[in-house]
C-alpha cells in the first residue's frame, strides 16, 4: 500500500494507485454480486450484507494504511477484507461453509478475519468491533509501535453504547484510531434522519473531543485524502479522528429486505453517483485507455469465478472436531 509518487491523478494519488483502486472496487462489487446470486439461488444459507455501492469507502480508507496497520470490520465486511488484499478464494469458501474458508466454515459471511493482513475481524454485533479497535490501538501504543487502527462502522452503530465507550477511551488516551462511519443513510431500515437528532453524524464526535470530517464516500479520492490525513494524525500521536463517509447501499440490508423504508427514486439517484463509474470516468479523463480498464474488468470477473469454483470444489469441514475447537492450547499472540 505504499504510495508511488509520480503521475499524480488527484492531489497526491498516483495513477498507478488509482488503477489499483479501480481493480479493488471492481473485485468487491463482483464478489458481492456473486454472493447476491448465490443467495438468490439458495446456494448459500444464512444471511449476508452486501457492500455494493459503498466500495469507495473501504478502498479509499485502506489505501491510506501502511502494512502492519489493522482494521476492525462489520457485518457488511466483505469490502474491507478485499480492500486489504484478502484472499477472495478463502472468502468465497467461507461463505460456502467450506474447510478452506477463512474460518474453516465456522464463521460465514459475518465473521471473516485475516489477522495476517491486519483484519481483526468482521462482527455480527453492531458496534461490537469498536471497543476492540480501541484495544488494538492501545496495544500498539503500549508496544511503542507506530501502527494505526481503522474502526469501520455503520451509521446505526453510532447509537450503540459500545461506540460511546470506545470513542471516549480513544479520545482520553489519544489512541491511534480512525473511526470510519459508513453513513449509508439507514441502519436496517431506521433512517439517520429519525435515529439521530443531529444534522451530521460527524457532530457526535465533538462530544468526545474527537475531530471529525465528512466526505463523499462515493469518491475514492476524497475518502483516501481524508483517510490519509486522519491516519497521519493518528500515527504521529495526534489521537483519533472520525470520518463520516456518505454513501449508499444499492441492495437490501440483508438477504430478506422488501425495501419498504426507502423510495425507488432515492435508490435510482444514488445509483447515478456510482463510485466505480465515477472512478472510471476520472481515469478515462486522465488518459487511461478503456481497453486496459476492460481488461481489468475481465480479469476480476475471472478471479471471482475462479474463487467460486475453488470454493465449490472445496471439502466440507469435519463436525467431529467441533468440540475440540473451542479452546486453544497455543499462545498465538507471538511471545
Amino acid at each position, binding site marked *: 500500500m505504499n504510495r508511488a509518487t509520480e503521475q499524480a491523478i488527484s492531489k497526491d494519488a498516483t495513477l498507478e494507485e488509482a488503477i489499483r483502486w479501480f481493480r479493488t472496487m471492481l473485485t468487491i462489487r463482483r464478489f458481492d454480486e456473486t454472493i447476491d446470486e448465490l443467495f438468490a439461488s439458495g446456494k448459500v444459507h444464512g*444471511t449476508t450484507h452486501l457492500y455494493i455501492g459503498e466500495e469507495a469507502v473501504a478502498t479509499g480508507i485502506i489505501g491510506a494504511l501502511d502494512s502492519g496497520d489493522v482494521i476492525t470490520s462489520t457485518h457488511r465486511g466483505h469490502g474491507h477484507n478485499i480492500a486489504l488484499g484478502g484472499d477472495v478464494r478463502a472468502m468465497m469458501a467461507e461463505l460456502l461453509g467450506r474447510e478452506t474458508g477463512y474460518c474453516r466454515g*465456522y464463521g460465514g459471511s459475518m*465473521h471473516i478475519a485475516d489477522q495476517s493482513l491486519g483484519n481483526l475481524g468482521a462482527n455480527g*454485533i453492531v458496534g461490537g468491533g469498536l471497543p476492540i479497535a480501541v484495544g488494538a490501538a492501545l496495544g500498539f501504543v503500549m508496544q511503542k509501535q507506530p501502527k494505526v487502527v481503522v474502526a469501520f462502522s455503520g451509521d446505526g452503530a453510532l447509537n450503540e*453504547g459500545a461506540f460511546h465507550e470506545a470513542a471516549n477511551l480513544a479520545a482520553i488516551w489519544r489512541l491511534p484510531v480512525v473511526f470510519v462511519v459508513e453513513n449509508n443513510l439507514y441502519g436496517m431500515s431506521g433512517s439517520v434522519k*429519525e435515529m439521530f437528532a443531529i444534522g451530521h453524524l460527524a457532530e457526535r464526535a465533538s462530544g468526545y473531543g474527537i475531530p471529525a470530517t465528512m466526505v463523499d464516500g462515493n469518491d475514492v479520492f476524497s475518502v483516501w485524502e481524508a483517510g490519509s490525513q486522519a491516519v497521519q494524525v493518528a500515527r504521529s500521536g495526534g489521537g483519533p479522528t472520525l470520518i463520516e463517509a456518505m454513501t449508499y447501499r444499492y441492495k437490501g440490508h440483508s438477504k430478506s*429486505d422488501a425495501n419498504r423504508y426507502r423510495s425507488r427514486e432515492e435508490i435510482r439517484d444514488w445509483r447515478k453517483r456510482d463510485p466505480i463509474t465515477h472512478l472510471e470516468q476520472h481515469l478515462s479523463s486522465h488518459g487511461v485507455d478503456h481497453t486496459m480498464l476492460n481488461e481489468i474488468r475481465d480479469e476480476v470477473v475471472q478471479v471471482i469465478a475462479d474463487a467460486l469454483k475453488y470454493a465449490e470444489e472445496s471439502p466440507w469441514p469435519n463436525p467431529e472436531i467441533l468440540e475440540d475447537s473451542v479452546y486453544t492450547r497455543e499462545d498465538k499472540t507471538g511471545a
Partner: protein
Amino acid sequence: MPEMTYAAAIRSAIEWEMEHDPRVFIMGEDIGVYGGAFGITLGLVEKFGKDRVRDTPIAEEGIVGAGIGSALVGMKPIVEMQFSDFIVNAMDQVVNQAAKIHFMFGGRMTVPLVIRGPAGAGTGAAAQHSQSLEAWFHHIPGLKVVMPAFPDDARGLLLSAIRDPNPVIFFEHKLLYKTVGEVPDSYEGIPLGSGVIRRHGSHATIITYSLMVHRTLEAAERLAAKGWDLEVIDLRSLVPMDIDLVVESVKRTGRLVVCHEAVGRGGVGGEIAARVMESEAFDYLDAPLLRITGLNTPVPYSPPLEEAFMPSVDRIAQTLETWLECEVVTQ
C-alpha cells in the same frame, strides 16, 4: 379452529392486547414498516401508528431500559430483540434493573415488561445470531421465562406474558415461525407455568421445550416403531416450571431424559435433572440421566457443522435408542 403460523399467532397476541389495553405498546429495531427481521410485526404500524409501534435506534440497553421506565409509570411495553442474542447488550437493564426492581425496592414497584425475540440456530446465522440463552435468565430471580413450541401456545402464553405484572422473557424459535397449527379463537391466555404431556409413554420421560419438542416427538415416533414407548413433556415455560408434572412422569417411567438445543454445559437440563434428583422421583430412577443438547461450542456457520451442533431428529433418536437398549434391557 383456525390454523395459523406460530409467527401469526405471536402477532395476533400483540395485536389483541394492543387493541384491548391502551397501555400496551411495542418497540424495537425495524419493527415498523420493515415489519421486523422476521416479519412478526408486519402490518402493526399501519394499524396502530408509529407511536405504539415504535422503531428504535440500534441501542438494546437503551430500549429495554426505556421499556422499564415506561412500565414504572403505567405502560405495558413489549420490547423486541431483533435476535435474542442482542439481549446480551441489554443485560444490565434486564438483570440488574427489571428483574430486581420489585424485590429490591421492597415490593412497591412492578415492571410489567415483555422482552421477546427469536432464539436458536438452524438458519446459518452463526455464533452471534443463533444462541439459546434461556439458562441465564432462568437463573435470575425476578424474571419469568417462556419458550413456546406451537402456535396456540405462542399466542396463549404471550397473552399471559403481556398481562403478567412481572418481567417476562419470551423466546421464540426462528425455525418455528412458519410452523402451522390450530389456534383456538379464545384470547384467554394460557397460564405461565403449566407443562403439557405431548406424548404418553412408559419407558422414559423426555423433558423438552421450544423447537426440540418437535424433534423429540418425531424421534419418539421413530422409536415407537421399534417398540419403545416414550413420554414427552413440553415445559412451555421454564420459570415458573411445572416440576410436579415432571416428577410425576419420572415416577411412572423411571427414566429421565432432557433435550434442549442450548449448549449442554450449564443448560437448563442440569436444573431439571437436579430437581428430579432431589425429589421423591429419585427413588424411582432406574437409569442414569440422559441429556441430548447443543454441543459445548459456539454455534458454527457451515451447514454440516450447524447440523452437528443442534440435536437433530437423527441424533435424538439414535442417542435415545442406544441409551434405552443399554438401560432398559440390562437392568
